């Protein structure tokens, strides 16, 4: 589904990613762990198509199409979803309006009928109930005044509504209480299917107990230093990153 080959990404002329190779197949769940500043979020932004994240070398193929040439909205339409590490506040735009515009845009892209207000509300109600999100969070402006945990839940709600083929979760677990963590993990797990894939960026083994990964990668200094199965996360927990970072020297 996703094939990243020798990816180099620069931000403001500073090279952050220095040759990433990663293959994610349908049905798989991958986890990326790594020290602060190693480039995890940069990888997420590069996949989502953020301006200023310049791919200087390498390629990204998504379902055999060149992702780099596509706008962020086209990538979303094609099925890529990035849950932001720091969700953005948008004063004045109600959360429902945002969700509805997003869902209908993605549906248009996929050649599906747009939903009317009634149909939309039905879908959203269903998802908010599953995720334990209070209705007033829908009426409020996007993320404005939301607590850290509420923002993360809101990311998961968007993911659930948009139903992406590849979900990238950038530290969606940080700032969540234990119950919320389970709800979020549950949200991710219900999306798991042979046609979908998930890339989880996290610092904590704890999340990976709920979302069990098929592969774990260690990203340090802009490169994947090492990959393994879910045991690797446990090993990291014990030893820390120092060893892997040194390996890169």
């Amino acid at each position, binding site marked *: 589904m996703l094939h990243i080959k020798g990816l180099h990404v620069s931000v403001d002329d500073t090279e952050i990613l220095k040759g990433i190779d990663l293959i994610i197949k349908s049905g798989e769940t991958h986890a990326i762990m790594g020290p602060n500043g190693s480039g995890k979020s940069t990888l997420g932004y590069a996949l989502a198509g953020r301006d200023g994240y310049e791919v200087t070398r390498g390629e990204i193929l998504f379902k055999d199409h060149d992702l780099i040439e596509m706008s962020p909205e086209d990538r*979303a339409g094609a099925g890529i979803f990035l849950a932001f590490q720091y969700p*953005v506040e*948008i004063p004045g735009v109600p959360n429902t309006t945002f969700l509805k515009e997003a869902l209908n845009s993605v549906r248009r892209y996929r050649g599906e009928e747009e939903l009317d207000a009634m149909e939309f509300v039905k879908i959203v109600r269903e998802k908010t109930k599953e995720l334990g999100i209070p209705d007033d969070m829908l009426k409020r402006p996007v993320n404005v005044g939301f607590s850290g945990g509420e923002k993360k839940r809101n990311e998961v709600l968007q993911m659930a509504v948009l139903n992406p083929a590849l979900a990238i979760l950038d530290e969606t677990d940080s700032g969540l209480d234990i119950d919320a963590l389970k709800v979020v993990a549950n949200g991710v797990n219900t999306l798991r299917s042979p046609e979908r894939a998930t890339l989880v960026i996290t610092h904590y083994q704890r999340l990976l107990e709920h979302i069990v990964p098929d592969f774990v990668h260690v990203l340090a200094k802009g490169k994947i230093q090492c990959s393994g199965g879910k045991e690797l996360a446990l090993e990291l927990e014990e030893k820390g990153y120092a060893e892997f970072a040194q390996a890169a020297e």
Partner: protein
Amino acid sequence: MNSNTDTFLSDYEAVYPGLPGSGVKWLDSIRRCGMEEFRAQGLPTGRTEDWKYTRLRSLEDTIFRPATLEDGEVDVNQLPTLFSGDSMVPRIVFVNGCLKTEFSCMDNLPDGVTVDSLRGAMDRDPEWFASHLGQVGCIDGNPLVALNTAMMNSGAVVRVHKDTAVEKPIEMIFVAGLTNGPVAYYPRNLIVMDEGADATFIQHHTGLGGGPYFVNSVTEIEVSGNARLRHYSVQNENVEATHLASIHVRVGCDATYEAFCMSTGGRLSRNESFVRLEGSGGHCGLNGAYMMRGKEHCDNTTLIEHMVPYTSCREVFKGVLDDESRSVFQGKITVHKDAQKTDGRMLSKTLLLSDRAEIDTKPELEIYADDVKCAHGATTGQLNTEALFYLRSRGIPDALARSLLVESFIAEAIEEISHLDVRAAMTGLVASQSSNRRCLGIEISEKSEGYKFE
């Protein structure tokens, strides 16, 4: 006096016999005063502090003749309204400044409300009219009011009688254009709210078709004790129009004047509001929004004067400038010596969508009392790129995402509109304006069909 002052008055003798109230002594003398005053002062120039940022070049390069009844063949379906679904909304319609009874709809005016044209007002109650016209809008030092006073050819004269409360808005519609050559017209409106009266008016200025024209409008307003006037306006003149409007308001004890002005058009538009809070407990809400593009220039100049203790005002202006458009915001709050316990707040925020757009902001507080609460703030910024990316990363096409951000930016001003139907209609107006200006999201999603994923 300068030569171009002459061009505005040169037709005066020819036009005069056809003006409302010609031959009526008191009105004649008012007109003559206006003419003398305008001759003496001439058009405002950059030498006047208030006009430093707005130059009237558009009036220098064109000669405008006064509009007549024969100007402008307008179709009733072209008339602007905020309530397109509701044909029962009372309205008075002027085309190039001339009353069009066939388009107006005043049979269903509520009891206690009268709406006339200038001419109609002379017939209905000349004494009342004479005692109110020219009382609030002063010609001294204001050449545009002077010019309007000399030339006023029509306008709406409204009286809402004591304790009459009307929820449903009444529309005052001015359309212009579709004339043979450039014309000028001079609407003069008068709105008098008697004690305890409560009503809502919506004033439209819309340009139909192309071609330059000049609107010089003056509106005088009296809001008596315990009364409330909600006065909303929509300025959507054409891209060659020059629109100079001033509103002069007097607010009494425990009375409220609430205004919102939405500007979306005009080569050059300037809306001036002068509000005097003359009774304690008086409140004024002076708000507005503007969306400019191309080379449009929009000026909002306001003066709120607190004359007595315990008065309050709140002012929120939000503007969006694209291309090479320019705007000017000059907001002044004056608190006179006796006006203790004044509560005044003013806010102006501008969003620049292009790096060639420009704003001049001049907020001013002039305070002579010592026990007051006053604040002002002004900001200028660009579209939040982080928010834009967030929206796009959810599939929302760039153009639609920008529109959403623009709409949400303006929403803060629209929320000041207390009449909920009007607020909803204005929100709709902003949405259609902001999506009009860039190609719609649909186009982009069609383009996207190139990528098909199974």
